[in-house]
């Protein structure tokens, strides 16, 4: 019977201790320059610790049986489910829309090459032709004669047939930099990297285009100075010859060749093969 008041006392004591620890951690986090979200995280840990210590000295739970036990059990499952879903939802959520467009671009060539892709492409073309024919027929009916029937062909040749200008190629190469997520390992313009691979800002001054291409298609062919330890040799994935079309590699190389900032210490590449 005396257990309850003493437990309440102990809860109050622990809450006060938890608040003090939380306050100290919060203050220390400010002093050490942690952003607000980390300060709150530290306070949350202080609260978790408090909850744990309260639980340790909590009085015994009386035995439950029958319907009461079943009801408590079901409620327990509901609470657990709610806490886990709620907890997971509280973390920052990745937006799938960010990668949907990327994936479509990355898989475009492979889709075209697949049987399914070929069939789909034929269907799309047939549909487009059918729509075009309908539109021409409509125009003929309204104007009483042929007008711009040849124009789309010329436009089409421009869009699909001509080689991109060098400016376009560099832009396409930058696109490839993003699509292949090179920024995950290589720092560029002071962003990304995490030191997994060398900074790339001055690579245009250190490698020729064909050497860069060789490195991308066969990552062990060149190694950057300071990245030659055995475990580092395999860091650059040997997969781009499969994942990228030749024109994509050329575009990426064109982009990399423009990176000529001597102020950045891009390590010197060494020929290994």
């Amino acid at each position, binding site marked *: 019977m005396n257990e309850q008041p003493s437990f309440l006392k102990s809860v109050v004591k622990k809450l006060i201790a938890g608040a003090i620890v939380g306050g100290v951690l919060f203050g220390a986090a400010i002093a050490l320059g942690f*952003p607000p979200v980390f300060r709150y995280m530290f306070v949350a840990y202080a609260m978790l610790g408090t909850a*744990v210590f309260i639980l340790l000295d909590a009085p015994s739970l009386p035995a439950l*049986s029958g319907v009461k036990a079943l009801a408590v059990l079901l409620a327990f499952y509901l609470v657990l*489910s709610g806490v886990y879903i709620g907890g997971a939802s509280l973390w920052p959520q990745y937006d*799938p829309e960010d*990668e949907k467009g990327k994936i479509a671009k990355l898989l475009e060539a492979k889709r075209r090459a697949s049987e399914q892709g070929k069939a789909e492409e034929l269907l799309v073309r047939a549909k487009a032709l059918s729509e075009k024919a309908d539109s021409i027929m409509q125009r003929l009916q309204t104007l009483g004669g042929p007008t711009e029937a040849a124009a789309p062909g010329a436009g089409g040749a421009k869009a699909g047939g001509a080689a991109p200008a060098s400016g376009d190629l560099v832009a396409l190469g930058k696109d490839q930099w993003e699509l292949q997520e090179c920024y995950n390992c290589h720092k560029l313009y002071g962003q990304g990297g995490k030191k997994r691979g060398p900074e790339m800002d001055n690579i245009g001054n250190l490698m020729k285009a064909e050497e860069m291409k060789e490195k991308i298609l066969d990552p062990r062919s060149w190694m950057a100075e300071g990245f030659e330890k055995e475990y580092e040799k395999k860091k650059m994935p040997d997969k781009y010859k*499969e994942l990228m079309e030749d024109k994509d590699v050329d575009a990426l190389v064109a982009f990399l060749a423009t990176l000529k900032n001597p102020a950045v210490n891009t390590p010197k590449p060494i020929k290994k093969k």
Partner: protein
Amino acid sequence: MKTWQRSLLVLFGLLAVFGATAYAQVPSAPTVEFPYTGNRLAVWIVAQLHILFAAFILGAPIFVVISEWLGYRKQDPRYDRLAKEVIKVTVILYSMTALTGGLFIFVLLATYPQFTTWLINHFFLVFAVIYPLLFIGETIVLYLYFYTWDSWKGDKKARHIALGVLLNLIGTITLFVIDGPTSFMNTPAKAEGASIVEFIQAATLWDKIFNYSWMPLNLHRLVGNVTFGGFITGLIAAYMYMGAKTDSERSYYDWMGFVGNLIGVGALLFLPFMGYLLSYELCDYDASICPYMMADQLSMFFEMQGAMVGLIFLASNYYIWLSMKRIEGVERVRISVLTVLVMIALPFVMTYTWTVFPVPDPKSLAVLVPLVLAPAVLGKIVPPLGRLTVSSRVCIKVAFLMVVIGNAIWMTPHGFVATGAKLVEELELPGDWSFLALMPAKNSAAFTLVFVTVVNYILYNRAIKQGTIVWGKIDFVSQFVLIFLAFSAIWTMGLMGAVRSLVRKYFHTYNLYPDFTAESFTPTLSYSAWWITGITLVFYIVVSFAIILTLRVSESKAHVPEGSPVPAGAK
């Protein structure tokens, strides 16, 4: 469920395997669209359910046979009863494994016919011959093991135990065989400098099976299955304890819950390292998988994993705390103050050491091994130090504090963003503290959780040697702890299963077979959590039903009474 009904279900599973293999040979099978869920989610639900059932039926027999052997060796009927009760539940869940396995293949063929055909063709011998043969073998041995339990007693017990060993052998080989195609989807075999497509075309079946992540996945699943089986045993015990009518029953199920938790935690201690080995191999296979998991799309999944692991360690240590409270004489148990000091120093010293000597540099062992052994060795070399002790209560409370601190380190992210591309200064760890988000700190945190848990179990062991356990008198809240552990273990398994599948990114088989469907993106953690919870609940309902059906309904049979309290020496 009668034997013929179980056999029918198993037969259904087998037919599904054969049917699917044959169906896969039919060219250009049409694709169906699952209503409401979509195809990916339909496969996710069925696959995850199948894996949960399979994990239990593969993990439980490992400790069942050990328990049976212990019962035989110690002549303690409780071990034999535990083994038999768990195997009863296993037999029911075996049927569910076959049923969901068959369903899994059908759903796969209906939703991803081209890919499924492609995969079956690559592993034709596995799917058409080896796996079905193992499945038949396992079925026969499992039923033989179960139905000979009562008849192969006394002199024949050793024969029965040998049958259990054979069952485990077949089960483990089955796991290893099916892990071949599973791991192949994550890390298809490749050779340096060669085109992966060309290499796979020329590769032998063994080349495809023995890929980068095959053995790490085998080990991870093997240990994970035992952990899972242990916690489900705890769940069985908790249900039975809650429904027990007599002190003798409560005493037995209290003991069973303790053993289940011990098995679960014992295996759990190895799990972080097995998981680390698997992710290490994945990253070694393709370094771009690492940032995808740890810094980008899946980074918050790992935050959630950290939270779950922390909760599981807190709960398992809380169970030990509650277990110690019912030991008479526990207040006399003390431990060296050096142990407590090492517990406190461990995460900080380890983080520093592993930062200076990164894994696998063996120099780190020169610091860490003496540190971990210091409490045992220093006390003997300098006796006055050995005489400085603290009570078990103080030690466990410090251990809890270190679990919270260790978990805080584990969960400190580089930034509070779901992807590195959106990282801004206000959400990023300050530069001086960025080491907290790196692997040395994370490994230290994992090691701290393991170390303090081991210390707590050593303390418990001392307590039962010096005191008397009053079985059946444990705080009732402990049963909820056991249920919590099982639920959380299943949930975590679902979460990590999702991660293992998602690291394939927009491929069915990484870098080899793209997923052209509109669903090949990374889902949000919140969306995944809803479905993981749903799957966990469905699994729980089936398991609860199996427990009630097999144990509650048939519990009227008389059991050998267990005394209460039990003198410590008799344990």
